[in-house]
């Protein structure tokens, strides 16, 4: 027996995934900076470069995952960022397009949100 993948044709999980990636990225960045500043830079003077590079790496991974999800929503779900007609029919194909459309919008939103989360490391060069 072949089990369906979690995020594939008609699965609703594609709508949840971008938010989960954003939340995981947010928490990781928070933890990395908090632990580094509490342990390595207790007096606030140590440089923040290791945190900057780690956050940059985590951010690239998060953006890559969101990009992959967006491609999936566009390809497998047939979603598009802008729709020109009302999706209202009670058919499997219509539901799939709707999921793809919403997933693409969420991917765009969370791309921006992930960049917002990462912005502070570009500005600050020490813990305080």
């Amino acid at each position, binding site marked *: 027996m072949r089990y369906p993948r979690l995020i594939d044709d008609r699965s609703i999980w594609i709508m949840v995934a971008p938010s989960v990636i954003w939340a995981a990225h947010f928490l990781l960045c928070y933890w990395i900076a908090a632990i580094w500043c509490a342990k390595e830079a207790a007096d606030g003077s140590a440089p923040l470069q290791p945190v900057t590079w780690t956050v940059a790496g985590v951010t690239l991974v998060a953006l890559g995952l969101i990009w992959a999800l967006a491609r999936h929503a566009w390809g497998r779900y047939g979603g598009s960022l802008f729709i020109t007609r009302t999706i209202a029919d009670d058919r499997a194909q219509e539901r799939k397009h709707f999921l793809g459309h919403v997933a693409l919008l969420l991917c765009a939103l969370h791309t*921006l949100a992930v960049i917002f989360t990462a*912005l502070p490391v570009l500005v600050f060069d020490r813990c305080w």
Partner: protein
Amino acid sequence: MSRRTFPQREERHDDTLAFICRFTDRRTGGPYAPRGRHAIFRLKLAPLSATLLLAGCSGPHNWLSGAGREAMRIEALFWPLLIGAGLIWTAVMTLAVVAYRTAEKGGTERQVRAYVVWGGVVFPAVVLTGLLATGLLTLRGIAAQPAAHTVAVDGEQWWWRVRYEGPEGPVVSANEIRLPRGETVRFELTSDDVIHSFWAPAIGGKMDLIPGRTTQLTLTPEKTGSWGGICAEFCGSAHAQMLFRLVVMEPEAYARWLADEARPAQATGPGLEVFLDEGCGACHSIRGTKAQGPVGPDLTHFAGRETLGAGIRPVSRTALRNWIRYPEAIKPGVRMPGYPDMPDARLDRLVDYLMALK
């Protein structure tokens, strides 16, 4: 592209828009103009409430007074934000009213889509990114910097223990912080009991004092004067009476003052015996005497300060007498016990002595 008409006014039941249109119709006497006496009252009360609001824009706590470099950075962020928010609010309200009044004309889907994409997605994204970047740069500007002086402030329930790094060792004081004008001072903030927050709005801040941690804040006062400070984090029953003064002096005057402050108390007299007999020295220190209590504020140069009870009364004989007799009446929950039964003669001697601690 199909041309879609919007619902007519009769079909709309939007209270918010109706509320806005009451104001636009007030002058024209249109269908939404307010009726009845309450509208007149509202018009008359508007200038009064504006006056009351503006009255808060002066005095020792005014963060728009340009008294500190960090406060000025916040001010530089505040005005563009206020004007920008005002412009956006006016534009949105104008659009809403125009849309409400010209509903019959309708609009194509393309126009509506353009409004949503540009006004609802692109514009907010660009504005928010700009705001975030500007806010972060401001934050970096007011974060702790290398400083010429260090002042340690320990938040207590409900007063401030202050320790200066003097040329000949630490100098301990309380509830009043003196700073040299034009020089950057780093505050090292701690707390022994609960979280407090150090805020001198006119100069800059604020920063939390967290038990078990040392937080830092740098301030650069630019105007001499006596500025107000408050605890900005609820910390117990007398939180609202946990104030301090921040006195900004010319650098030479500050150096002289710090040298004086480092000296032990000069005053003598029968009041010192009363002070020691009543057990005041178990909590309070007066350097140069047997009173070495570490619990309450250091009183070595008590009468040189502007206030007593952590910024809530001026230093005067009357206020001091009342404070010693009934501290709880002035500051609910204060740890200092009252001395309501102390004979007047003894109290006078004690007050004489304390008022001589310049």
